[in-house]
């Protein structure tokens, strides 16, 4: 467990929008060691207080990102009081981006940016007693789900129960932690209405927006046996060992495992995608080699 936590300390998550969902998401994530970028240019208004429990009267008229940073003492948090558009989003450098906004324009900006840079992101929406969470890890994008929709339910026209935003935040954090620790996130749209929760499969609208990825997402971490580093792909995959064997200096060859020697490192390559680095300490070098091994 402590290994798991220490690998999180070099990860970062950007939370865009610090209303009800965003502020609770930040609170939940503040108990991990993940660095948090808290992004919102808005100030706390008195009318926010009944459904945004992270803020109180003393915060009124203060920037949300700064007020929230002060409350999350246990985490490494960075306030960013900026309005997100296609230019400003380039300043957001994080492993995952969480959409906690309330408008479609910002979501489309996040969508384009994440697609271009191969960043996983999670879309959330909450209104009334309905909550929606969709993790985007590359198989489909926001436009695949919503087409070019420009308007939907907002809190402004339907109000919101504060329990709805709490639940959306919880589900979002679950999914974010799955992604950041290299586990498969839920496929599809997680949607609840009151007590009833459903996972809806996404029927791709004709979408040419998702570029085929040529890089494989993986996590590199110290083995729990303390015996080296291992890289595990985010999605289940089967490697073509006979291809890999040709590309690298191969020491041992079997139908399920190869041992290769490259860049001064010995790597055990398992057909199910796991790589085991022996006696290596340079993480950047390992990352690069892993990417080369996974490249098709």
């Amino acid at each position, binding site marked *: 467990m402590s290994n798991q936590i220490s690998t999180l300390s070099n990860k970062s998550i950007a939370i865009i929008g610090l209303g009800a969902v965003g502020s609770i998401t930040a609170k939940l994530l503040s108990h991990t060691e993940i660095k948090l970028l808290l992004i919102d240019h808005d100030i706390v208004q008195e009318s926010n207080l009944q459904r945004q429990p992270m803020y109180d009267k003393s915060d009124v008229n203060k920037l949300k990102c700064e007020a929230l940073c002060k409350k999350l003492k246990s985490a490494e948090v960075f306030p960013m009081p900026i309005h997100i558009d296609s230019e400003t989003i380039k300043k957001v450098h994080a492993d995952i981006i969480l959409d906690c906004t309330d408008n479609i324009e910002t979501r489309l900006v996040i969508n384009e940016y994440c697609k271009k840079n191969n960043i996983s992101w999670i879309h959330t929406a909450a209104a009334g007693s309905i909550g929606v969470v969709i993790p985007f890890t590359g198989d489909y994008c926001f436009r695949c789900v919503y087409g070019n929709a420009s308007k939907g339910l907002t809190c402004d026209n339907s109000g919101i129960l504060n329990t709805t935003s709490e639940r959306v935040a919880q589900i979002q954090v679950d999914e974010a932690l799955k992604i950041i620790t290299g586990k498969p996130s839920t496929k599809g749209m997680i949607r609840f209405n009151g007590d009833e929760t459903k996972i809806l499969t996404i029927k791709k609208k004709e979408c040419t927006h998702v570029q085929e990825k040529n890089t494989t997402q993986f996590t590199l971490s110290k*083995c729990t*046996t*303390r*015996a*080296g580093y291992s890289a595990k792909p985010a999605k289940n995959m089967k490697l073509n060992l006979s291809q890999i064997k040709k590309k690298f200096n191969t*020491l*041992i*060859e*079997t*139908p*399920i*495992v190869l*041992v290769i020697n490259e860049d001064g490192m*010995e790597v*055990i390559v*398992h057909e199910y995608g796991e790589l*085991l*680095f*022996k*006696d290596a300490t340079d993480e950047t070098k390992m990352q690069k080699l892993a990417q080369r091994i996974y490249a098709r």
Partner: protein
Amino acid sequence: MKAILLLSGGIDSPVAAHLMQRKGYTIVAALHFYNKHLGNINTVDKCEQLCKKLNIKKIITIPFDEQQAEIVRKCAHKFYYIIQRRLMWRIAENIAKKENAQYLITGENLAQVASQTLSNMQTTQSAVQISILRPLLCNDKVETIAMAREIDTYEISKGPEVCCLLGPKHPATSSSKEIIEKEEEKIDVKNLIEESLKIAEKLSPQILDDAKILK
């Protein structure tokens, strides 16, 4: 009463060694199969430390990567552990003859892992003539661990270890001599034994230690 100890570097085999020594058996050598490439830590180091603790004067180490790879390449994967153990024991039997020992000591424990079910133990046994001593056969793991702490080998044994990446997800829990012998026809067992004996290295923990001091 001379015996060869099959020493893995794990928790069980040092305890097995200790129990047999207590009964008056002399362990003339510890035999350790290790991976140069398929593992990623030095288990030989561990075995040196364990032998010093157990006052065993000789360690024979055999790199085992190619032999294991050959089994995976040619034989039905689910029998991997059984075929591998039969090969190890045959090599051990050869070494016992050379060292003038009449027994092999193992840390085997009934049904602890797939290769240690009664059925698979019998199949493994049938590969050799030599008597096998299994002092831990009916221990509970907690008893073995308690004993390892007592004789001060636990801290050495519990160190970093890599699981066998070549092992099948679902290893066979039962087998028969006939089926396994058929599988073994796919590999050149005799040659694998000879090659293994050729690359075996003998180490003496004491001498090694002295050499380190001299440096």
